[in-house]
């Protein structure tokens, strides 16, 4: 019941939840509320700290995702076309996340050091746009993972019947 495989899978799924949930919360819940409730200077101050902290959380979660994902591949014991596609998408997602936080996020951090700046709005828009792309790709990866896990569990289900 409580096997290493299950534990690794648990960490893997938790990392997905953290990475995806954090990005979605920031984009759809936090950013609109900040825009409505805070004045320009305060909004920038809060947003830049959120961007930085979110970068740490999302990038850490993605690193954990890769390690646990590779362990999962070892447990599953086969690399089919679906898994290959998933791994390819994972690589794209990580590169996009590195761009989002390693370039855009840090640039936002730097530009907003002295409060609101004209260059900030386009940067933030681009940051959100890349974040949404990352989110959509992660959702696609989750969908592919469901296909993989269903395919892997199918013989077991048949055997149980």
């Amino acid at each position, binding site marked *: 019941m409580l096997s290493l495989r299950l534990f690794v899978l648990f960490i893997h799924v938790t990392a997905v939840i953290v990475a995806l949930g954090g990005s979605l919360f920031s984009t759809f819940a936090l950013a609109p509320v900040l825009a409505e409730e805070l004045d320009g200077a305060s909004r920038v101050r809060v947003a*830049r700290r959120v961007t*930085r902290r979110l*970068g*740490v959380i999302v*990038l*850490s979660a*993605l*690193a954990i*995702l*890769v*390690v646990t*994902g*590779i362990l999962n*591949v*070892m447990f599953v*014991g*086969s*690399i*089919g*076309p679906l898994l290959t596609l998933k*791994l390819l998408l*994972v*690589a794209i997602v*990580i*590169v996009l*996340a*590195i*761009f989002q*936080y*390693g*370039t*855009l*996020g*840090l*640039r936002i*951090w*730097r530009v*907003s*050091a*002295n409060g609101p700046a004209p260059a900030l709005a386009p940067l933030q828009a681009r940051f959100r746009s890349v974040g949404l792309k990352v989110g959509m790709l992660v959702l696609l990866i989750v969908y592919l993972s469901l296909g993989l896990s269903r395919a892997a569990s199918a013989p077991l289900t048949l055997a149980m019947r």
Partner: protein
Amino acid sequence: MTAGATPPRAAQLTHATSDMRHLIARLIQASVLIGLLAMFSYASGLHNVVRMRAPAAGAWWNAHEFYLMEGAATALGLLVALRVGVRFAAEAASIRYLAPVALALEAALLLPLTHLCARVARIGADGGAIVAPNRMAAYAGFEGGKTLDKLLIAALYFIKTVGFGFLLGLALFGAVLVGAIVSARGDGAPIDVRGTRSSADSQL
């Protein structure tokens, strides 16, 4: 800049980043060279040729060519990931220590990661494995097909090891980037140098 004057910090950093990129590029070239040589040697039994000329060297090469292939493939994946990471983390790339730290981590973890990548790369796809050898035998004859099959297996293994190395390299770079983001000072000033535009900016 006048002769003898200390170069600005931004220029020093750009030089450091550029040197690092050159080093990574050279290491990638070396990995490709060693990896491909070991792969072709392993697939075609090149060690026999070496054995005829120098038995001791041939025996050593035969004993190590597979590990060299695995190690070079993993190193290649890690290094390509580092290069991609440095390119896409343009702002962070201006941090002097980011790439060297990532490279040092990769070097330190190369052996365990090689074992991990090689082990995962051995996992194959289900079914259809007999199709390729049969087709190659039909095309090139039994002996030729056998050699081509060995070459295909070795090449696929090499590519898969590179792929897993690449994924792990991206994860490793992400972890190092987290360290860089955390080390950004709370007052908003950088991360290493204000106003330094790395050459990576223009590459994006």
